[in-house]
């Protein structure tokens, strides 16, 4: 049965999905698709330390700790790449597994007197978001909606302000540098956006949506267009669609197998995968089905003199 709960869950899911998909486009273009996964694991020690220092699960210190840990992941990865001549993937892997291990140890050490389950950090609970509301005028709005809406707004503002710079430095960092736009600064700005987005979404809806939405909708968009602005729009559209379809799936699918329920986060990731599958098959110019059915191009005879340019 569809209730106002479900409406809020879908709204929160959509806000979070679009907030992730926008910076995700630039991650994908910069061959850093795995950064979201790395950051979402690596924030664990940040959360644990913030908790151990403040002793509460208040969200502001947790948020700061996690965002800091996320930025450190990007920073350490860059250092290991630069100073050690290590491949980006390997550097990222070492940094995030090490930070995650530190986080696990801290949490286990503190586990005697706290309820900080690594599982709950990783999975989040989008289903519970409507319970935690903030009164805003006459309405009770879920805190998660405000948080993710705020992050979405921040992402929109930063990406609009630096659109041309991000575009240039994503496609040609050297040219950006010679024209005086520091690609290093833009890199860290993007990393900050990703870290903040990841952590905000993480804390409210769980990390799976974040990891999936950073990669899959942009990848879908990349199959449908060759231009940046349409890519951002298509990615946002695919993200919204995935949020709606995913939550519907979470309500319907378990019944098919005789189970009671499942988590919307996982189903939203699955839905985004199915949307990608559709684009993969049916994209007008890149889909594998469409390519098969397209007429073979008329071969050009290089010896004939009927050159259309001079006609």
């Amino acid at each position: 049965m569809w209730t106002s709960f479900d409406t809020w869950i879908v709204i929160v899911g959509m806000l979070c999905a679009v907030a992730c998909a926008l910076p995700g486009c630039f991650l994908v273009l910069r061959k850093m698709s795995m950064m979201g996964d790395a950051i979402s694991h690596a924030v664990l020690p940040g959360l644990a330390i913030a908790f151990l220092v403040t002793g509460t699960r208040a969200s502001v210190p947790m948020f700061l700790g996690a965002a800091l840990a996320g930025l450190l992941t990007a920073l350490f990865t860059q250092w290991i790449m630069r100073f050690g001549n290590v491949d980006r993937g390997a550097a990222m892997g070492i940094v995030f597994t090490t930070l995650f291990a530190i986080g696990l140890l801290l949490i286990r050490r503190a586990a005697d007197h706290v309820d900080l389950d690594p599982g709950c950090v990783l999975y989040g609970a989008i289903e519970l978001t409507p319970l935690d509301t903030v009164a805003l005028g006459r309405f009770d709005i879920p805190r998660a909606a405000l948080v993710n809406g705020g992050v979405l707004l921040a992402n929109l503002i930063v990406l609009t302000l630096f659109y041309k710079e991000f575009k240039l430095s994503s496609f040609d960092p050297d040219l950006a540098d010679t024209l005086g736009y520091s690609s290093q600064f833009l890199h860290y700005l993007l990393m900050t956006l990703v870290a903040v987005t990841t952590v905000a979404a993480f804390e409210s809806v769980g990390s799976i949506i974040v990891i999936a939405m950073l990669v899959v909708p942009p990848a879908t968009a990349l199959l449908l267009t060759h231009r940046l602005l349409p890519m951002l729009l298509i990615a946002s559209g695919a993200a919204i669609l995935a949020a709606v379809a995913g939550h519907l799936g979470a309500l319907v699918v378990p019944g098919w197998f005789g189970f009671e329920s499942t988590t919307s986060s996982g189903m939203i990731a699955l839905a985004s995968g199915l949307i990608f599958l559709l684009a993969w098959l049916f994209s007008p110019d890149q889909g594998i089905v469409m390519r098969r059915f397209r007429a073979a191009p008329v071969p050009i005879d290089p010896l004939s003199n009927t050159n259309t340019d001079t006609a």
Partner: protein
Amino acid sequence: MPGLSEILEVLLLQNYNTRLVVLSTTLLGVAAGLVGSFLLLRKRSLMGDALSHATLPGIAIAFGVMVALGGEGKSLPALLLGATLSGVAGIATMLIIRHTTRLRDDVAMGFVLSVFFGVGVASLRMVQNLPNAAGLESFIYGKAASVVMSDFLLIALVAGVASLVCLIFLKEFLVLCFDDGYAAAQGWPTLFLDVLLLGLVTAVTVIGLQSVGLILVIAFLITPPTAARFWTDRLLPMLLISAVIGGVSGWLGASLSALTPQLPAGAVIVLVAAALFLVSMLFAPVRGVLPRLLNQAALRRKEDRQHFLRAAYEILEDQAGDAPVANRSFPYEALLPKRSWTPRQLRQILRVARREDHLEPTPPGRLRLSEPGFGEAARVTRNHRLWESYLIQYADVAPSHVDRDADMVEHILGAELVRELEAKLGGTLPGQTVPPSPHSSGER
């Protein structure tokens, strides 16, 4: 705190309770170190990351199916079979995306990771209300302490076979990793080799799931090979070092965690491996950061010294005119415009030259080379000019540009190369004399 004897007992595998755990993580580390090396060289380190996440739906679905068939559900072989199957499906998806779209490796990995993990979590949530489902999530974080004899035999078998295959296919994997296009052109079955390699990664990941967990097995595949890469530029030594680092991390990490309550083995193993990585990155003699910085600093000092000596020799030449060059004192002011060095850099260079006895004590404002310094200056200038003549005669470099070109390479001319240059240009350059500059000084 555990006593020394207790520590030794665990480390030396004397303790029955921990022996299997420590042995199995050690073997796992060795196998992962070998397999991971090829992944690293193929720039696919994060493949292990995507793969290990992709095993989760298999575990959950295998459990669900087992229960539906009336089984007990948590039989390890069945769960690992499910994990293997969904891992293989993940890899197949990755390869298909890679080959049929313009998306690159990282996107394909990110896609498989997130979608499969999403499905895994969704199906785990579905089956978690079934009886006996508690503990399935231990696959995410690992539970080394629960290794029993049959698990150990499985891990030993898979790790042994994976290591053996790596060594048997050493040459093939080498070609694949360094130049897959060349390998394909030479007629190697690159697709088969790629699939074989990924199959080994899957096998190691799946047996690592149970003891270190699906997130930390990633570190086993990435950290030891990356650390080993700092120690050598050759494949076989790299494989061996990587296997040793992996094995030592598994052995020390599992022992430490066995000795201390509350320390999960997976996390400790990862931290030991990370510590070994850090040491390798900073101090390894071949590619480590500190040795490289020291080398660079030494080279820079050598360049500075040679620049200074040649500048001094050229000043002496100008002073001598047509007479033979003699070692006399010259003014400091003549030195400064010779190269684009700042007064501060020059003072530093002179300080080093005094320390190396290339300069004699002189009144302020004047400089005078010592006897060894003068000889060295003549030698350096001679090498520079030999190289210039060679470039002009054999490489068709214009005389007006040759000074700069020679400048870039002359500092690493070995004695061997100098003899070769002498032989080539022999007729024109008798004995140890310094030839005149092959270009006019105005053109410098």
